[in-house]
């Protein structure tokens, strides 16, 4: 049973920030509500004030520029991202990620900002956006600030958003040449949340011979999306070999910090972290190699 709350519908960002400031002590923001309403129905979240930003249309947009990259408004739905021709062309991994997030029904109404602010460590966009080196733009009534997405996630269902702050925008830089990004999650039911997921970005050297840059991010393997920098270091300057993949995978497994729960044991999650890291490094690397031949 959902507990009583006072409901406010904001029409603009300014109105939203005023409401957040006024009800600082006890509020929740709802946009698509696809995660929040489940928690409210279970009584796990019971805000005194509910601030609805679904009709704040100025937060729903997808913009792209060859210099500055991609900007996605926080209230943009999953479905709009998945169907965007610009994203299909320049960031196809996002289309793949979005298509596998949940049912059409959830993607039609749920928003990208809501997904990130929910702070679920098994969420799909977190790892992929971090592999793409995303930034988030946040504001409160007084000021705006930018934050790396990897610093936005703090703990289970906890983000760096302070009381009164609103997530405005996700920014993704242009993907460097000879770079490919791969993402996969392991789950039992298709399009369900992943038990463990891995997002990997590989940039090759000009001659395509070795790895120039790498980003490896795990989902479902810790209290937040986890970047495994030491596994990235293992790849730098090296050629693709089975033993290199094994080393990177083992490092990811070692540095993961998963828990045992109803879906999987800690041991199994570590095993998945290794397997998915190996597979995604290989997949991204081989994909990047095909860009050489063009």
């Amino acid at each position: 049973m959902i507990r009583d709350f006072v409901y406010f519908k904001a029409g603009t960002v300014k109105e939203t920030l005023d409401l957040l400031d006024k009800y600082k002590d006890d509020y929740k923001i709802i946009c698509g509500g696809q995660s929040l309403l489940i928690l409210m129905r279970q009584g796990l979240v019971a805000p005194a004030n509910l601030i609805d930003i679904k009709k704040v249309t100025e937060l729903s947009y997808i913009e792209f520029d060859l210099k500055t990259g991609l900007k996605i408004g926080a209230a943009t739905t999953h479905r709009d991202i998945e169907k965007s021709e610009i994203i299909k062309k320049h960031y196809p991994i996002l289309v793949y990620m979005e298509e596998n997030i949940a049912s059409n029904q959830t993607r039609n109404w749920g928003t990208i900002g809501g997904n990130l602010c929910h702070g679920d460590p098994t969420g799909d966009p977190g790892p992929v956006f971090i592999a793409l080196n995303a930034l988030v733009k946040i504001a409160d009534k007084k000021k705006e600030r930018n934050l790396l997405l990897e610093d936005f996630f703090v703990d289970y269902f906890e983000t760096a958003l302070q009381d009164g702050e609103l997530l405005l925008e996700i920014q993704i830089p242009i993907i460097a040449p000879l770079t490919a990004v791969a993402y996969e999650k392991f789950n039992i039911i298709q399009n369900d949340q992943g038990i463990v997921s891995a997002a990997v970005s590989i940039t090759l050297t000009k001659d395509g011979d070795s790895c120039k840059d790498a980003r490896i991010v795990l989902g479902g393997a810790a209290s937040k999306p986890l970047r495994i920098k030491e596994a990235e270091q293992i790849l730098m300057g090296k050629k693709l070999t089975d033993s290199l993949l094994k080393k990177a995978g083992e490092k990811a497994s070692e540095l993961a910090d998963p828990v045992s729960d109803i879906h999987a044991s800690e041991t199994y999650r570590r095993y998945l972290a290794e397997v998915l890291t190996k597979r995604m490094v290989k997949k991204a690397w081989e994909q990047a190699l095909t860009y050489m031949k063009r």
Partner: protein
Amino acid sequence: MEKQLLRITVNHQYHELYIEPKRLLVEVLRNELELTGTKRACSTGACCACSVILNGMAVKSCSVLAMQADECEVLTVESLAENGELTPLQKAFLDFGAFQCGFCTSGMLMSATAFLRETPKPTVDQIREALHGNLCRCTGYNSIIRAVKAVADGKYKGSSQ
């Protein structure tokens, strides 16, 4: 809890209702408007039995606050048949035996209706993708997919899907 004004067009009919803001769309459809064709099953957002079309998109009416549908247009399963004439999709569901207990049917019909408007000539794989969130506990999936495919292939003439 203080009631608030909801202005909502359901099945082409405009309504003004005073509701508690914590009411879900499915509750307003079933309890206030007595449109009980929309079914509430899992109540955790996992089964899509409560799917309706909101501003042209399939959504789960158990996962949308009714107040979020203010000034929106909602279509429920009751909107499909006109003057007793079933839509092609409804006829196909009958012909293909696309239900057993029937509890998932209104959600299946609304999801498939929205999908066929979006993707008029889908492949079987696209139909499976589009309906994968709609659970059928009697496991009648194949007959459902066949019914949607038959309509997409133009085997049923009639009013709009």
